[in-house]
């Protein structure tokens, strides 16, 4: 009996162990390899994008009860590592949202994205900015299109607290000199003029990009990105760094500029204590559902007097849809893409405050704040995508972010800043 019991126990234990191994190693039905779900990964966690994708998925699921969309929303900071890991495995999602540009090039090089040229050629007349340089660069690699823009980001925005301006008898600035004068006036009253939290590097870099595009022009910056003549330490780039350093040196940014993150930056602005904040159009999208407690306005980045390219702006096809090569349900993915970019869905997205890439959506249903941002964006003579999206991470997310942080704390001069970026660009060439 004891022997028999031992054997039974051993068999049970072994069976348990095998079951455990099977569960851990993912044997059996896997998440992406399913016939009943269309898997989607995106950064649309909340705000306008979150509301938009929820609506689109709901529409899809009602029409396609046998193949429902299974959405995995992932936060911005965690999205890229999760996506890269997912796509490098054997069981990626069927369709993904992609922050394009360098990511597109890297994923295509690794043969992870499907060629969508045919779809784009057939549908691109439905999209705004379809042939703009910044849009083309987002998804095109060696003449083929690997992603489709669904939403635009404009960096050419300053949000202001109209109540605070009115309280101190100030007007909405119409040029950069007036902006600086009002910042100085606020500073003299003990009020920090501009909210900025640069812990993660990119919020401060966006200020730099906005100065660079006005000082150098989009085409010159692309020349530096492409190593076709311009250099990152040319005088216009040094001047742009000087513009940012001057704001920091004057004390126009909060004392927590180097330690606060984006959320702290927006929280400070929304607390009503700070009159100005620069960030992209995505912030406006979140305000539709949760408006500020004060009268909030937007304006384009003030034009710098004497800047050679003051009508150029920073903005990009920030949200695109791509299809992993090892994904499943390919025909259904295109059907989902058709729904996502349909006029009905695009209008709904725009209504939430999202700058939809579909023609007419923002004009039809976008809130006034979004229509104004898009109008400023559309009237630009040249559009530069966020430089950190265009260059290798070593240059953008590492050196550029850290150098901007140093510039904001006065640890480097504008010339040292520019030389370091140029040296890194040469190193990663």
């Amino acid at each position, binding site marked *: 009996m*004891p022997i028999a019991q031992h*054997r039974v126990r051993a068999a049970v*234990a072994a069976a348990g162990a095998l079951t455990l191994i099977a569960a851990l190693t993912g044997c059996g039905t896997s998440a992406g390899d399913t016939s009943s779900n269309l898997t989607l990964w995106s950064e649309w966690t909340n705000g306008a994008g979150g509301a938009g994708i929820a609506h689109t998925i709901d529409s899809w699921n009602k029409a396609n009860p046998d193949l429902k969309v299974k959405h995995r929303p992932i936060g911005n900071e965690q999205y890229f590592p999760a996506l890269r890991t997912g796509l490098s495995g054997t069981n990626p999602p069927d369709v993904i949202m992609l922050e394009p540009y360098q990511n597109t090039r890297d994923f295509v*090089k690794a043969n992870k994205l499907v060629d969508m040229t045919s779809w784009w050629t057939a549908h691109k007349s439905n999209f705004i900015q379809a042939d703009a340089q910044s849009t083309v660069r987002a998804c095109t690699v060696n003449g083929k299109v690997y992603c489709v823009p669904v939403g635009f980001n404009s960096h050419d925005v300053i949000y202001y607290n109209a109540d605070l301006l009115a309280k101190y008898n100030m007007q909405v600035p119409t040029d950069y000199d007036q902006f600086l004068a009002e910042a100085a006036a606020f500073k003299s009253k003990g009020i920090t003029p501009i909210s900025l939290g640069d812990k993660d590097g990119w919020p401060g870099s966006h200020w730099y990009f906005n100065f660079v595009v006005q000082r150098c022009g989009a085409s010159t910056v692309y020349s530096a990105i492409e190593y076709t003549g311009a250099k990152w330490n040319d005088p216009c780039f040094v001047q742009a760094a000087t513009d940012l350093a001057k704001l920091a040196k004057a004390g126009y940014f909060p004392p927590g500029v180097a330690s606060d993150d984006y959320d702290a930056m927006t929280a400070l602005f929304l607390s009503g204590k700070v009159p100005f904040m620069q960030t992209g159009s995505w912030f406006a999208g979140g305000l539709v559902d949760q408006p500020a407690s004060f009268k909030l306005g937007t304006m384009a980045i003030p034009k710098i007097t004497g800047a050679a390219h003051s009508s150029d702006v920073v903005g990009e096809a920030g949200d695109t849809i791509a299809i992993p090569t090892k994904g499943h349900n390919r025909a259904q993915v295109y059907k989902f893409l058709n729904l996502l970019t349909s006029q009905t869905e695009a209008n709904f997205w725009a209504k939430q405050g999202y700058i939809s890439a579909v023609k007419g959506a923002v004009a039809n249903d976008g809130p006034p704040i979004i229509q104004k941002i898009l109008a400023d964006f559309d009237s630009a003579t040249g559009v530069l995508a966020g430089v950190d999206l265009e260059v290798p991470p070593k240059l953008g997310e590492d050196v550029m972010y850290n150098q901007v942080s140093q510039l904001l704390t006065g640890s480097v001069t504008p010339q040292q800043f520019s030389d370091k970026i140029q040296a890194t660009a040469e190193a990663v060439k």
Partner: protein
Amino acid sequence: MNVTGGVRPTRDSFAKEGTMAISAATRRSRRVTAQGGIVARAAFLTPATVFYSLFMIVPLLGTIFLSFTDWTGFSVENIHFIGTANYRALFADPVFHQALGNTVVFVVIAAVFKTLAALVMALLVHMRLPLSNVFRSVFVLPSVISVVVIGIVFSLILSPSLGPLNALLQAVGLGQFQSAWLGDGHIALFILIGLDVWLGFGVYMLLFLSRLVALPKDLSEAAVVDGATAFQELRYVTLPQLSSVIGIVTLLSIIDSLKVFATVYVMTNGGPNHATEVLSTWGYFQAFSQSQVGYGSAVLVVLLFFTFLVTVAWMIFLRPRTERNS
């Protein structure tokens, strides 16, 4: 002879054969039982072995393997062996040097203060002063709260723009001590070290306490009878008996601090300008943000090497002494 021509068994021979038969049966039974025991033991060990292999051994070997490749993390088809190129690149990477230096500073200070704080608090709690039990729970509490949550909360407290600390200093007339805190590269690392000590010492205090309550009282009583002061009793009676635990706590706190990641990642992300960069965050950044999985793995293997070194050093030099003392 019996009818079959055999020898009739005597009582003795019967007893002998019987004993032999029983012995053989017992041996067979024991052999079978032993075989069953081996199978059962193997079956019960299998889950732990599988877990350990899958989540420790395989990733460890994988990381070491990847450190000799140029893998970008995008495609397993594109892994190329590049020898020691990643390790040679470490020598030319100023941020790696900074991260290495920060890690050493972090580990030395944190390990010393964690051990000291744990020891002092354990002695105080063991003295059964008023509210000892309350403080014992209070000291352990940080260890059971999510490190990420603590990181976020402290980031908010220390935020010069939104946090209450600077406002409090201003309110009580200590405005000259206001600071950018985590935004100040000169003090940010020490804030993180302080937080790590606060987070970790409670558990080590429990280790000291468990040893303290088990110490025989006769030595202390003899010392008191012989006229030893409280300090002398502590110095010459109690601490020598705690030496084994001190050794273990030091080792554990060193390893604990070597692995620090979450607080740094959440609170400063290695900044400002790499002032708080440690090997774990730099390795993570290289592997997951810069798509240099091979290089990031090399950074983490260096971290692994230091952890291994500390453990081996403890086993060779400290363990025999502490075991002898205990």
